């Protein structure tokens, strides 16, 4: 893999990586760049508490009682003011859609469980579980088959 650094004071700063497939390296690069530009977190609210939630701390973002909530690594629920659709655009590529109202941090998925009725649940490291829709299950399979 070649490395090229172009220093141009006139051009807009950007990191562009040309790769054959996303990998752990591209994820690390993405995290580093987001972290350096301060775009690696969202604000989470719980009771009177307001917390900066780094993307890597979030296990799942889902909708509960028509409100967007983020589940962190300790299993805490934080209300998020952004819409799920908007979040999907800013979240790193390791956040995958598991159903129409949930985005999962794939690093934090402990396993997938078959449940009664033939459904599949994603079980997170904090113990939180959320169903995986049939359509998303196929997409996740296709995503991992490249490994």
């Amino acid at each position, binding site marked *: 893999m070649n490395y090229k650094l172009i220093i141009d004071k006139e051009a807009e700063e950007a990191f562009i990586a040309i790769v054959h497939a996303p990998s752990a390296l591209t994820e690390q690069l993405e995290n580093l760049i987001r972290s350096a530009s301060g775009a690696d977190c969202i604000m989470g609210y719980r009771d009177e508490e307001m917390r900066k939630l780094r993307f890597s701390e979030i296990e799942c973002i889902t909708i509960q009682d028509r409100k967007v909530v983020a589940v962190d690594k300790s299993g805490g629920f934080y209300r998020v003011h952004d819409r799920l659709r908007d979040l999907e655009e800013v979240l790193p590529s390791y956040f995958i859609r598991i159903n129409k109202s949930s985005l999962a941090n794939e690093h934090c998925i402990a396993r997938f469980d078959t449940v*009664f009725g033939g*459904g599949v649940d994603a079980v997170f490291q904090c113990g939180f579980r959320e169903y995986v829709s049939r359509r998303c299950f196929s997409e996740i399979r296709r995503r*991992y088959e490249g490994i």
Partner: protein
Amino acid sequence: MKKYAGDFFRQGLVSFGFGPLALAVVYLCLQKSGVMQSITADEASLGIFSTAVLAFVIGGAKVIYDIERLPIMLAVLLHGSILYVSYITVYLINGWLKWGVTPVLVFTVVFVVGYLLIMALILTTIKRRTARLNKMLQQKHQQENSLE
């Protein structure tokens, strides 16, 4: 729910013409094979109307599989129940299945066994796919750990 009701109606409308068409093919086959030579106007109209309704329900019932929150087995069970009630009603009112315990029981057993086989196959496939996905997930986690 409104969306699914609309989809049920739309898909039902797309399918309902196929009922009488299938009926015409069956009547033609029966006539060519010498089983049946003629039918009364009552029998023909009842057959046409009932198969149109049957096709409408069967076509519309496919919407069950679009309900994301519904696990596949429950969707199959619900779909099977709708199909069973629709088929047995149409068969009985047209006289294609004789009224009585034995014919209904035979039809029911064949239908239930068929559906159980389908459900067993689906469950086995889901379990196998989930196990495979878990394996791939582990591989991905291992790759990430080795890079770190």
